[in-house]
């Protein structure tokens, strides 16, 4: 016969303070666990959102980021002539030759510096990035030293607002507009005219070329052609999504691994806390346990009741920690992405898998923490238990 659930629940309620402290301990660990997962996910989401499955990118083979890459005008022309490249409404191939460089800017309110991406592109390039919307000011005028700035940079860096002036490439550039780019990496960039940027940095070559494919399935064919063409030696094509995903890999791995290691260590603290609480609960209710067994409840029912108690504590703690972690979705952080060596802003993303993993993690802590005490409760000898006081 199963020990009624209400016994478990009321027992917990009698020891509210202790139960709450144990719940808080579990909650804290769960919060860190979930927050770390959410942060790594947020980074991945940003970089994946930055790419489109219709687009591919042509760049140097060994280049991990656009700033390390260079492609010649000739190579760009060869690729855009391929039939797999989609054609725009104007009959011209849909592609954007871009020049990407890094400049230093100072963070607001501190002397800390950040590496900010400056992307030179053409109107074709803007057309290929539907995520970009102007929110303040206006678009830059082609052929001038004007820039527009992503909102994540505008909010965090000095002089990165409308009217702000940035000096690089031997001239002053004026920011004339702020844009919103959703969750993508573009929100952490400055954008200007590709020809102007190239001139300023004295670069006769592009960094990379983004192009639209007629169909995402055309990619293998394009890749094969590029690899076979001797004129395109040292160059490669990647799906835009894959490219950006790879760019976030190192940082995302660091966050996940470090976070997981720390959380596992923490979890021992929480499990020990749960164990202490449950052992005390067993010790204090020895007479009760003896009584229940004398009444006819079996050992495994006692084990089950105490284990349930531990799991409830863990579950409540898990939900509390999860709710707290969920509030982190309001937070964006901006830091250096090591692979691209530039600033990237990203947030905390909650997914169903993270919710599930977190709850399971909490329950595992509750199970491990509660098992030994529950086993002790089950193993009590009836007579001794009844005599205890």
């Amino acid at each position, binding site marked *: 016969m199963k020990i009624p659930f209400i016994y478990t629940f009321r027992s917990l309620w009698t020891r509210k303070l202790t139960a709450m402290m144990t719940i808080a301990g579990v909650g804290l660990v769960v919060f860190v666990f979930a927050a770390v997962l959410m942060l790594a996910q947020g980074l991945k989401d940003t970089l994946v959102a930055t790419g489109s499955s219709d687009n591919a990118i042509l760049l140097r083979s060994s280049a991990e980021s656009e700033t390390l890459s260079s492609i010649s005008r000739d190579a760009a022309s060869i690729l855009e002539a391929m039939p797999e490249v989609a054609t725009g409404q104007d009959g011209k191939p849909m592609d954007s030759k871009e020049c990407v460089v*890094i400049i230093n800017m100072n963070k607001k309110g501190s002397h800390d510096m950040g590496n900010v991406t400056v992307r030179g592109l053409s109107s074709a390039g803007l057309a290929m990035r539907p995520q970009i919307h102007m929110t303040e000011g206006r678009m830059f005028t082609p052929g001038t030293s004007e820039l527009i700035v992503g909102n994540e940079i505008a909010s965090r860096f000095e002089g990165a607002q409308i009217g702000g002036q940035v000096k690089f*490439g031997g001239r002053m550039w004026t920011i004339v507009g702020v844009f919103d780019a959703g969750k993508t990496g573009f929100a952490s960039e400055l954008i200007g005219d590709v020809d102007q940027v190239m001139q300023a940095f004295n670069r006769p070559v592009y960094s990379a070329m983004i192009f639209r494919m007629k169909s995402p399935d055309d990619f293998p064919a394009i890749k094969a052609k590029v690899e076979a063409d001797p004129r395109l030696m040292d160059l490669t094509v990647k799906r835009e999504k894959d490219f950006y995903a790879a760019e976030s890999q190192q940082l995302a791995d660091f966050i996940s691994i470090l976070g997981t290691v720390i959380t596992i260590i923490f979890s021992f603290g929480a499990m020990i806390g749960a164990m202490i609480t449950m052992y005390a609960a067993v010790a204090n209710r020895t007479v009760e346990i003896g009584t229940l067994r004398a009444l006819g409840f079996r050992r495994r029912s006692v084990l089950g009741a105490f284990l349930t108690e531990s799991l409830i504590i863990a579950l409540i703690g898990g939900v509390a920690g999860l709710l707290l972690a969920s509030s982190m979705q309001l937070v964006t952080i901006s*830091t*250096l992405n090591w692979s691209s060596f530039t600033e990237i802003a990203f947030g905390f993303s909650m997914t169903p898998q993270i919710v599930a993993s977190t709850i399971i993690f909490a329950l595992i802590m509750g199970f491990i923490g509660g098992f030994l005490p529950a086993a002790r409760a089950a193993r009590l000898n009836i007579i001794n238990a009844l005599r205890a006081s």
Partner: protein
Amino acid sequence: MIFKLIVKNIFRHKLRALLTILGIAVAVMSFGLLRTIISTWYSGSNNAAPDRLITRQAVSFVFPLPLADMQQIERVPGVKAVSYENWFGGVYIDSKHFFSRFAVDADNIFTLYPEYMIPPDQLTAFKNDRDGCIIGQKLAEQYNFKIGDIIQLTGDIYPGQWQFVVRGIYKGSKPSVEETAMFFHWDYLNEYLVKNNPGRANNVGWYVVQINNPNDAAQVSAAIDNLFLNSNAETKTETEKAFAQSFVSMSSAIITSLQIVSYVIIGIIFLVLANTMVMTARERIREYAVLKTLGFTAGHLVTIIAGESLSIAIIGGAIGIILTFPICIGFGKAFAMFFPAMVMEPMTFILAGGFAIIIGILAAVFPAERAASIKIVDGLRQVG
């Protein structure tokens, strides 16, 4: 004998005391680990010599400076010696096998970096061999590189296949000096560029400037930058420490997050200990009432409870601090790529110990207050 009472009470419930101490130890150890990660991150800038400045392109150190600038910099008053480096980057095997790779002014660079200790014969061999390289001891151990081995790199900033012969292995003069970098001849790189990409030739990544008097750092920096004001390649000169710190501060968001998490741990320590103390005090209310009956005051009771709490915190804290050493070393090995040398600072241990003591006191507050204020008659009525 109050002391004897405290000690005996701690181990009344052996299992509970042990678990509490263990819980605290684990939490203190985590705190130590996190803070060590943070201090290691900052330690690069701590190694910087006060008499070295770094001159780099003002817009971003991603852009090079002309080699021609060197003569002008050398002539600035207060400057003792100048050398230069280029960040080569490149890929060894694949992007997972990361270590720092620099093209350097082979003749001078190691005079400016005395903390890299190289056997003189190896240094000479390196200087005489255009495609030679010098690598750090830890790097050599990690990949089993020996003198005479060839290291093959695929360039990215400087495209192409590159091969270097190991001519020397350096050791750090202090444990905090990293031993994971690779240095080769800037001339070797430049020869290639002159032939294949003359537009990029004769440029350096940054200058390392040694000055006579560290107090002149600000002056000399300004003087150097003045030389190139309004030119095509304006410079920014700062102390090496500031330069190193600027890299660290780019990841400030992550570092701040780690700091926040390290304080969360303190919260966990508190909860574990406070939980135990509350339970323990609750079970002993009757005893406390008896002591009061005998004439012991609230003050005595507070001392007994606080003493117990503090003792557990200190024992747990001490074990946690001791355990921090092996765990930091293990962590450093596992993450050798990110953390070449785990730097454990005394402050970390002082903080850990300090927090353990504060927690020891705080965890006693609630139960002590309860024990002190309870009426004797109510306390006697309690069933353990």
